[in-house]
């Protein structure tokens, strides 16, 4: 941790399930305000990596540092408190609560006073374009809004680093564009973002750097245009038989 603007670092992290190495010796680091895209075929270990970072899984080997602190074996709520927020691939709103109450619950992490938390939640809802829906029951809103809500909750925890797990999946192209705008806006406000994404348009447009995972290993990283030309990456996606 030499440079001060490195906010997040993973060192040789591995995780196996039974005999399968879901994540194998993965290392990378991220600068403040960076937007990193994490891509790879199904089962490459992207979500596992997120679960390792956020404490939902414990790595077999390796270390994870956030703001010069080893967070490797901390519990999920401690990691969130330190400033890493996440969304889930399958959205999990607090279904019987309203959209606003969902965000307020997240905002209470840094606002002990309910009134302050509510005020902040209303602001976050506005940023996320959820203002017209804050009184709706969260279980009943469309998927695109649930994804927005998940994002809003992660933001409302006061995260410095956001892990977005397929926020664009299942959205139509207008909705994806709206999301990308929000991601850019949030990044400009000083947040660091790591996003897992299958929608290539989404990652390629917004990420400054792309990491490619395949069979749990980091096979390539670099600028979007470099990565798409990388032979290993093409092989991972299209198979060995593919010839240029």
């Amino acid at each position: 941790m030499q440079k001060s603007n490195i906010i997040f670092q993973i060192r040789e992290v591995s995780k196996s399930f039974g005999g399968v190495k879901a994540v194998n010796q993965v290392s990378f680091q991220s600068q403040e305000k960076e937007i990193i895209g994490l891509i790879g075929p199904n089962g490459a270990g992207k979500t596992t990596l997120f679960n390792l970072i956020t404490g939902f899984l414990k790595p077999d080997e390796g270390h994870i540092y956030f703001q010069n602190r080893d967070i490797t074996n901390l519990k999920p709520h401690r990691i969130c408190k330190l400033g890493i927020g996440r969304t889930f691939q399958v959205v999990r709103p607090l279904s019987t609560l309203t959209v606003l109450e969902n965000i307020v619950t997240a905002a209470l992490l840094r606002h002990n006073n309910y009134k302050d938390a509510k005020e902040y939640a209303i602001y976050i809802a506005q940023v996320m374009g959820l203002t017209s829906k804050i009184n709706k029951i969260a279980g009943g809103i469309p998927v695109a809004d649930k994804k927005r809500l998940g994002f809003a909750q992660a933001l409302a925890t006061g995260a410095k680093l956001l892990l977005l797990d397929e926020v664009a999946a299942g959205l139509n192209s207008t909705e994806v564009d709206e999301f990308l705008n929000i991601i850019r806006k949030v990044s400009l406000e000083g947040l660091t973002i790591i996003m897992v994404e299958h929608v290539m348009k989404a990652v390629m447009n917004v990420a400054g750097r792309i990491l490619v995972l395949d069979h749990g290993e980091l096979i390539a990283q670099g600028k979007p245009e470099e990565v798409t030309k990388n032979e290993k990456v093409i092989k991972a996606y299209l198979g060995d038989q593919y010839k240029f």
Partner: protein
Amino acid sequence: MKNPYFLDIAITVLLYAFLGNAWNIVGGYCGQASLGHAAYYGIGAYISTILFLKFGISPWIGMILGAAFAGVLAIILGYPSLRMKGPYFVFFTIGFAETIRILFLTWKWVDGSRGIIIPFQNNPVNFIFFSKIPYYYIVLGFLIIGMFITYSISRSKIGKYSIAIREDETMAEALGIDTALYKSYAFAISASLMAIGGTFYAQYVLYIHPNDLMSLNNSVIFMLIAVAGGKGTLFGPLIGSAIIMPLWEYFRATFGGRFAGLGIVFAGSIILIIGTAVPQGIMGILSKIHAKYSISKDNIVGEEK
């Protein structure tokens, strides 16, 4: 109000509303369906009674000490038990309550299976009154305080976090909520109130026995009252108790001799009906009716903001 029989039913309704309200904090708001709450009820009764009879401490003070003890016990037990999920948690709570019940049944120092008779020394300091009327007002006061506590919790961070845990524990952790800690808080508050109810029961009936207080039956009734009325709502337990307890009493009085246990059959039927037809309880039905007649108004508010 002069008729002692009806006064007795009224006191029972209020006491069980108080107990259902205590269960509701952990079972309704926090979503941890405990079937062991009768243990805390019994512990409260035994602590105040033993302090009173063996050490001459007023049951009013004994009640506070019992509540404190129950709260601490809930936190100690909460650590292992609240990590369990679903049926495992329920089994743990049943096992815990049955263990405590059998412990008291066989414990000579507390007169085991003979139970304890509290001598009738009527004096407000002893929490013993000649008439039922003071008991009525005391339990009414307890209920109001208990409901006020629930109301305050539901608007506080503990309450909001409890609800988040009920809705989705994984998501709650991801939102930075120390789920084990907040479950323990809810459990401690709930258990303390249970113990206070236990002391009231002891002082009202003046006879305590492990089977009367700590039976699984009682734990089921606490849950039933909250669920029937509307779990996770402020007035649910009161409504539940007002409907269930008079019916329970009716079954006991009418069929108590030849068909003892019919009350349990009745309770079981209620659980089945509610579970399949109205999982949100009576409060759920009421709020649906309310929503139906105020849809237009809600929409206007929603659009404005």
